């Protein structure tokens, strides 16, 4: 039983990162009905930028903030690349285009920083915390990850529920025509959505990097987990993305603990397939409510 709890606790940190990446996917989906598969490519790119800043300044917070700024800019650029040219087509064209952007970003990162895996320095103590005379499967770094993820989620929730921009973003997601008729500058609002997703994805990238290494393809697996979490959560729902992201982290941790970590992606794909077969609107989706 202790091992079970250990595995669960060990999954919270990675779950928080998956939750952030899933959140980024949901943000672009809500804004423009496009699943942005380039999101992990953007996160990889901004994490390389963070690594460069970290190497130059030695300050992790400066690196994180640099990645967030770069993430916002890259989000705007990618939206422009993907959505403007294919605007008149259906969004499936744009979704394919995001794959193209992903490949381009990976190639560009390879050219700039090389294709080899690089270590991202550990910014905080990553050894297990000892508390009450017992070792816990959590480190200071895990707590930093969880706290940052929680801050982002709370920040986004406040943005969406308490601010005019958030209201405009929600209205635009639900009904762009009514939003425009109410005076909302819809295309600007959509771009802000992509920028915001870029920021959230950048944070996820910087947080996940120290626990593995970083290379142009190293975040591909994160896309699998985050996409699974986002779809199970209903793609439309911030709450769904966060809770299912953490849930996916726990499942992966259990699967890796009891069998082998190479089984985790398979389990994720099985969960994804099961959701699409049994409850395609996801657990937190709005689709049903809207079809009334």
């Amino acid at each position, binding site marked *: 039983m202790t091992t079970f709890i250990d595995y669960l606790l060990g999954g919270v940190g990675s779950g928080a990162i998956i939750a952030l990446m899933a959140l980024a996917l949901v943000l672009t989906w809500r804004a423009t009905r496009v699943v942005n598969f380039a999101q992990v490519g953007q996160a990889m790119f901004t994490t390389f930028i963070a690594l460069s800043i970290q190497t130059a300044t030695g300050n992790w917070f400066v690196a994180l903030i640099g990645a967030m700024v770069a993430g916002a800019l890259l989000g705007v650029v990618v939206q422009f690349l993907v959505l403007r040219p294919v605007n008149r087509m259906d969004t499936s064209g744009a979704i394919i285009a995001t794959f193209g952007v992903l490949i381009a970003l990976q190639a560009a990162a390879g050219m700039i920083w090389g294709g080899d895996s690089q270590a991202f320095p550990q910014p905080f103590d990553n050894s297990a915390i000892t508390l009450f005379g017992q070792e816990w499967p959590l480190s200071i770094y895990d707590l930093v990850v969880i706290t940052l993820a929680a801050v982002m989620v709370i920040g986004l929730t406040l943005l969406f529920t308490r601010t005019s921009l958030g*209201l*405009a973003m929600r209205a635009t997601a639900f009904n762009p025509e*009514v939003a*425009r*008729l*109410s*005076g*909302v500058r819809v295309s600007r609002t959509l771009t802000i959505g992509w920028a915001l997703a870029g920021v959230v994805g950048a944070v996820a990238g910087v947080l996940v990097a120290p626990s593995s290494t970083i290379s142009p393809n190293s975040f591909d697996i994160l896309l699998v987990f985050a996409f699974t979490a986002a779809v199970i959560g209903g793609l439309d729902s911030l709450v769904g993305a966060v809770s299912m992201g953490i849930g996916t982290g726990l499942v992966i941790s259990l699967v890796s603990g009891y069998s082998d970590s190479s089984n985790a992606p398979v389990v994720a794909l099985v969960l994804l397939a099961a959701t699409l077969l049994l409850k395609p609107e996801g657990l937190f989706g709005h689709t049903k*409510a809207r079809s*009334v």
Partner: protein
Amino acid sequence: MLSIQGLSVNYGPVKALTRVSLDVPRGEVTAVIGANGAGKSTLMRTLAGLVRPAEGSAFLDGQLLTGHKPEDIVRMGVALVPEGRSTIPELTVDENLRLGGLWRTRAERAVSHAEVFDLFPVLGQRRTMRADTLSGGERQQLAIGRALMCAPECLLLDEPSLGLAPLIVTQILDLVKRLSTEVNLAVLLVEQNAVTALREATQGVVLNLGQVVMSGPAAEIASHEELRHAYLGY
């Protein structure tokens, strides 16, 4: 005054509107009536900037509207309440109202918000409820309330009676009529229900296959037998 001059709209090869001209004076309701497919909704959507006209223009108090984006036209003072469910069901009543006129200052919006609750007290009682829990009549009031939050000079109402009980329709239209005189609003009302519309309106315009076939005082149109038979089907 909203002035429409020679407005034509094509959907591909289909001519939806052909050189439509009409004036919508302030302080009264002008009704556009006509059968299904006469181009009524197209006219409204073109005025709001959702559809680009092939030719012609529209002015509000001399200011050119056509060619601008919907979000700019509403800032210029023309607010459309589109046909059907034009509220956002996932948002609360308050949020639907706040959505209107987000570009205005907080103080200005607070005044409008209070005015809307004065006008439609039922919305004040339901402010924290989601819009999809409202009845059809309440939702129509909410949609009009959202348009009023934009502080319009001209209000475009597209089929507000759709799917509503006659008594509620009369209530809402009476309110709109009162509003037009009280705040000197130019109201353009599009209706399939000609009897109700002409009763509330001062001026009437009959649209058929995208063309104006008659315009004049509403009472005159309402009593014009041949016209009724030919275009309005009663």
